[in-house]
């Protein structure tokens, strides 16, 4: 059975935020949109599993997460940006404001965080999910969300302050 029009419209409304999340995960705009496309296709294929009482964004973010992890498993070349490439990626992002230098460093630093820290940090700070929603999307316990966010924030700070974070295994290609 095909998805009803109203569901499709809800999905349409979720696209801008899905794109932002995907961009912050894989940085390359076209690869990020590929991820969004896979997410939308899966959401449409499973629309009947969507409970209207839930937030469509949280539901689609968890689909995006699964798709992202699947792709990483299938093709390790796809998503991770080498720290040396991070500068190019950062240059490709539109610049805003006067303190561009600061923000460039911020995204470059973000790209160096291990993916399991980057995900919860983005879901909570960028997508403003609660820890419980974040745990649901990532399918990890809330306690793990808490400790990963804590580690992510201090690692990000270490990177921005020019210190090597104690846990920046993300400097290697694949964690």
């Amino acid at each position, binding site marked *: 059975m095909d998805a009803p029009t109203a569901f499709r419209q809800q999905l349409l409304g979720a696209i801008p935020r899905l794109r932002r999340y995907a961009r912050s995960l894989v940085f390359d705009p076209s690869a990020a949109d590929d991820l969004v*496309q896979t997410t939308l296709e899966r959401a449409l294929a499973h629309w009947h599993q969507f409970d209207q009482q839930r937030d469509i964004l949280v539901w689609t973010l968890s689909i995006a997460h699964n798709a992202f992890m699947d792709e990483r498993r299938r093709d390790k070349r796809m998503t991770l940006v080498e720290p040396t490439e991070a500068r190019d990626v950062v240059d490709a992002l539109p610049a805003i404001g006067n303190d561009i230098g600061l923000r460039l460093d911020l995204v470059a630093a973000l790209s160096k965080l291990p993916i399991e820290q980057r995900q919860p940090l983005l879901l909570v700070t960028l997508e403003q999910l609660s820890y419980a929603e974040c745990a649901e999307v990532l399918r990890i316990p809330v306690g793990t969300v808490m400790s990963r966010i804590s580690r992510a924030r201090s690692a990000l700070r270490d990177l921005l302050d020019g210190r090597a974070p104690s846990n920046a295994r993300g400097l290697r290609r694949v964690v």
Partner: protein
Amino acid sequence: MNAPPIDTLLNAWLDDELDAEKRIEVEAWLRDHPEEAARVRLWAADAEGLRARLDSVLAEPVPQRLTQVVWSQAPATAAPNTGWMRWAAAFAVFVVGGAVGAAIAWRVERPAAQMASSSGGPSWVQRAAVAHSVYVPEVRHPVEVKAQEEHLARWLTKRLEMPVKLFDLRSQGFELVGGRLLPDAKGPSAQLMYQSIGEAPAGQQPLRVTIYLRKPEVGTPAAFRYEQQGRTGLFYWVEGDSPGHPACGYAIVGDLPRERLLALAEAIERQDSASPSATPAS
């Protein structure tokens, strides 16, 4: 190396994840530990920076290939299928349930620990914000029905099953562009789009604000609330139920300073509490 537990607690405080008791405890501790408080402030600044940096993606036009995916294999006709029947049934329950709102209370509320507000208002307010970000950048099709078409108010009134008025915001410097029907959790909602009167600066789009209207759920708080997501501000409230004036949920969204958005919200509230037979301006 594991982060010390105190860091986990400070992060949870920053993300507004603590219960009241624990929050007060942490806040007292932070007052006594200015260096730790400075660290937390930096985390908050980093979060702000990330949002500022990545929010620009929201304003980008959605690539066609993505909208095409959403509409691929869409039902060819508008004929209700089983899926639709379920939606219709849910909507019927909602209508029967009726909408009882209290009179509007002009207290502006703001969550106390709003540094990183976690939930960001009820989900319909999120829908209003997303609908705003989706349609405001649209150059060719910002609205479904243009303001000039006199059936706009009639059409929205019929589909929302409540009187939809077109507000006159010209005294605030905004004119009506038009409106569109949007899906809400349990039935249709409407979006009215306004844009600033006069020439926009070269190369820029005119400034646009959107008003989101819906039938509120029973027991929706009527308080007047404000939220901010990046540069975008949002006021939302529920207009009271009275004879000849069914309850209505409102959200006004725009990239405007809070005071200007509030002035617009007040203008809407004034016009809405005027006689329902008032001539709609367009």
